């Protein structure tokens, strides 16, 4: 068993936290932002203004012996809609999206490909383990924390989106009892992003 504990994000090094966030949402970030500098700038902006799904209180850092070893971001379906609205409003008001119609189109397409959780759902938004700490069961540990958080809130269903090309991740969730409930695909400028929507009803 690990002695790691979760703390409100970023729990120290913001750059490191955001790199792990990028690892947890690589397909989405590449599809939407294309350019790594644009990606880093916008994700940092959203994070700092508390309007990202991976901002605290939804975003948590897994810390072990003072080092960041993983991240977990999860929230209820109602909070997810609210956070996405706040994030979208923030991006629009900040002017970041001005003259960026391609980016706007990709954001809309990517969001349409994600599942729309119900109010009673608890959504796994981000999960990642630092590369040098993989193979130690920390991913399963984080998933247990997600399920415990859902249980505390009396959630009726656990839901998540996973990149269809990430076969290991899909297997990971399937082995943990999650079942495919649908798929969503975004296509912009010849590039594809496909999500497998998965769900599990707590026992």
């Amino acid at each position: 068993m690990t002695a790691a504990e979760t703390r409100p994000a970023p729990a120290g090094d913001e750059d490191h936290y955001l790199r792990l966030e990028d690892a947890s949402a690589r397909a989405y970030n590449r599809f939407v932002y294309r350019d790594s500098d644009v990606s880093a700038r916008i994700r940092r902006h959203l994070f700092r203004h508390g309007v990202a799904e991976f901002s605290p209180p939804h975003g948590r850092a897994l810390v072990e012996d003072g080092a960041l070893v993983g991240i977990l971001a999860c929230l209820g379906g109602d909070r997810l809609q609210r956070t996405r609205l706040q994030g979208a409003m923030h991006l629009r008001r900040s002017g970041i999206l001005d003259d960026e119609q391609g980016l706007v189109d990709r954001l809309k397409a990517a969001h349409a490909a994600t599942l729309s959780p119900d109010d009673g759902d608890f959504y796994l938004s981000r999960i990642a383990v630092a590369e040098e700490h993989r193979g130690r069961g920390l991913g399963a540990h984080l998933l247990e924390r997600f399920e415990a958080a859902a249980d505390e809130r009396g959630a009726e269903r656990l839901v998540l989106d996973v990149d269809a090309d990430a076969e290991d991740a899909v297997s990971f969730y399937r082995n943990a009892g999650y079942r495919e409930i649908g798929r969503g695909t975004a296509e912009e400028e010849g590039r594809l992003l496909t999500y497998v929507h998965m769900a599990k009803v707590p026992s």
Partner: protein
Amino acid sequence: MTTERVTGEDVQAIFTDALEVDVPTEIDNLLDSGHIDSLTLVDLLLELEERYGVEFAADDLDPEHFSSVEAIADLVNRRRSAP
């Protein structure tokens, strides 16, 4: 002089004309049903702000306010009558 109330039809017209989005009137929740995404809804709100001289606060961004075009019209009317 009184200002005419904004109606669901007005909101729908903005969706159709300014944003080129078709929104069904008889659905439970615009966001839940996946008919509109958060960015499109925010673009609608910014258009409403400009047209009706209102300003939405962070607290207004509650999914409950956007269950239907009528609910959105109600929100605009409340903000217009606010001091």
